[in-house]
């Protein structure tokens, strides 16, 4: 009972704090932390899920009303949670290290970008494009299917590869997709090359909802669908077969696990999640170009999975949230704050911050701070924030 009260109070207070200080990054982090607290608190299941539902369905959009940037951050978090969960199937469950995962995201994004913008007229001629906004919903499934097929196409040639070799080939694959997007403006202009595609249509929103809220809710809906799919896969013979492959491929084959089918299924399932989010991403951004799908993005998603705890669904969610918030808010906020100090001419131990050479500008150290955090994590908590049961066992001996 006392736990329930504390959980309700923490959530309510943090939400109230955000409403009071809508500009403070720290307070928004507090709100995110309170969600985690509710998730981990020893309270009845119904209350837990009720509170989380209220927080995500009511409080978060309300916060967005005070500061629309937070809603944007939340939407980005949603996108990356879905990506991390998709990669979690491939890397965490089936043990296939994929360093080119963002390619599937790109495939989904370009599938809607091409048909949802006037660009398709260049390819097919005529004036039939862009497709009407409601086609967006159809393309959520088209993007899913296209990415799944791409996943199978990547899977086929790499079936015999393991570990390092697999990682290198998938890395190459990711780059191939990006380079294709970059260069397929000739001879037929499919992707418009580095200039990218714009304007990409957005779907009509129900009840005249603003786009910020709309994409937030859509991302949330997709994330929930992805979580359900992920959990069901994990608790089935398919999930067990994936884990068996990761544990001992030869034994798995001998016990009747069809290796080819299971590996392709892992690639296809993981890719399809990225494909759906790609479609949403292109509509949200209105403009996409190959720059959004670099190798660094693949690594970022992998870092989320590893940070959260490989093979664990809550881990992937928390990992994606932490990394995204770190990149979008904490590190940027830190840079901004130091710059403000500098401009204000603050001195520390008689040393004026304004005298710092520009090379020491904190904005340039975002990646380094991120790297240090990752290294520290690997030293002190290699199993991740929320490790999967089995990974815990692996590292425990």
């Amino acid at each position, binding site marked *: 009972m006392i736990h329930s009260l504390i959980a309700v109070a923490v959530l309510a207070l943090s939400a109230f704090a955000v409403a009071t200080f809508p500009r403070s990054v720290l307070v928004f982090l507090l709100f995110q932390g309170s969600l985690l607290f509710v998730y981990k608190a020893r309270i009845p299941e119904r209350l837990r899920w009720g509170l989380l539902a209220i927080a995500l369905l009511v409080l978060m959009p309300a916060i967005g009303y005070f500061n629309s940037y937070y809603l944007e951050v939340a939407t980005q978090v949603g996108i990356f949670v879905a990506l991390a969960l998709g990669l979690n199937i491939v890397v965490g469950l089936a043990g296939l290290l994929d360093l080119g995962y963002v390619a599937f995201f790109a495939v989904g994004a370009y599938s809607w970008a091409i048909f949802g913008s006037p660009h398709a007229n260049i390819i097919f001629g005529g004036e039939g494009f862009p497709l009407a906004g409601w086609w967006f919903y159809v393309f959520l499934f088209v993007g899913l299917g296209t990415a799944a097929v791409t996943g199978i196409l990547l899977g086929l040639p790499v079936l015999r590869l393991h570990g390092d070799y697999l990682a290198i080939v998938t890395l190459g694959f990711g780059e191939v997709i990006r380079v294709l997007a970059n260069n397929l403006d000739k001879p037929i202009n499919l992707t418009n090359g580095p200039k990218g595609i714009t304007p990409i249509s957005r779907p009509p929103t129900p009840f005249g909802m603003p786009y910020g809220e709309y994409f937030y809710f859509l991302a949330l809906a997709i994330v929930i669908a992805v979580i359900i*799919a992920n959990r069901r896969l994990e608790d*089935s013979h398919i999930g067990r077969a994936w884990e068996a492959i990761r544990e001992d491929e030869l034994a798995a084959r*001998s016990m*009747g696990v069809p290796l080819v089918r299971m590996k392709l299924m892992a690639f296809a399932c993981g890719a399809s999640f990225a494909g759906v989010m790609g479609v949403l991403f292109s509509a949200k951004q209105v403009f996409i170009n190959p720059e959004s799908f670099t190798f660094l993005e693949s690594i970022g998603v992998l870092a989320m999975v590893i940070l959260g705890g490989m093979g664990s669904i809550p881990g992937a969610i928390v990992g994606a949230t932490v990394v995204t918030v770190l990149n979008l808010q904490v590190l940027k906020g830190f840079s901004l704050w130091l710059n403000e100090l500098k401009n204000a001419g603050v001195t520390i131990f008689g040393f004026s911050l304004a005298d710092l050479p520009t090379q020491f500008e904190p904005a340039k150290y975002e990646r380094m701070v991120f790297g240090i955090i990752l290294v520290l994590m690997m030293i002190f908590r290699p199993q991740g924030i929320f490790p999967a049961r089995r990974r815990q066992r692996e590292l425990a001996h």
Partner: protein
Amino acid sequence: MPSLFEARGVTKRFGGLTALHAVDFAVDRGIASIIGPNGAGKTTLFNVFTGLYAADEGSVTFRDRPLLGLRPDQITALGICRTFQNIRLFSNMTAIENVLVGMNSRITLGLWDVLSRNPGFRRTESELAARAVRLLQRVGLQASVNVVARNLPYGDRRRLELARALASEPALLLLDEPTAGMTQGEASALMHLLRGLVADLELAIILIEHNMRVVMEVSDRVTVLDHGEKIAEGPPREVQSNARVIEAYLGKRGAGPRARSGA
């Protein structure tokens, strides 16, 4: 009537080395043992039978169906399953999860059944779990259902591997040195269990074994391999007194330990 399982003229070469040379082997029911000194080609024979190695020559049939060229999982689906000499469990999965993986080839559910979690899926899952628990009971692991395989004692791990192999409902079971590292008492208990399985499930077993007491006690037929060739075959008593077998195991009389004239 043709045998349940029949291999004819199986030859396997690794580069210049002939690991198996025109081996004939057949089993119908009961326990057939394969013995022979280390490196005689026993495990290689198993790997050919289960599709892990492709034979260079010869044919293998199971219930009149040719096996050569099939993938390991297809062979398992037909009803042949095996254990490994050096235990190969899914170490970080629990005992019951190991057994459930073994049932994979008997599950007809597709991706959609899993994602929609329809009544058929739920019924199947609970049936599978119940059967897995029964199998674990059968091999004496009822107390360790949810223990992670890695944390099981050695003998239990061997038994878990047996349960996992049985999960695919095989008609033919290939056991590669199942009593290795066991005490005589544990080995006898395991053989008792195998005899029970043969009687209850109409199972045929091919056994690779070094423990002679076990082999002679439990086998219906014994095949002796040496240097990739079959040098003797027959009921245990006959094989035990075969001159070539004694030579392969003990070396030529008067020629010192394990002197050989190159096979």
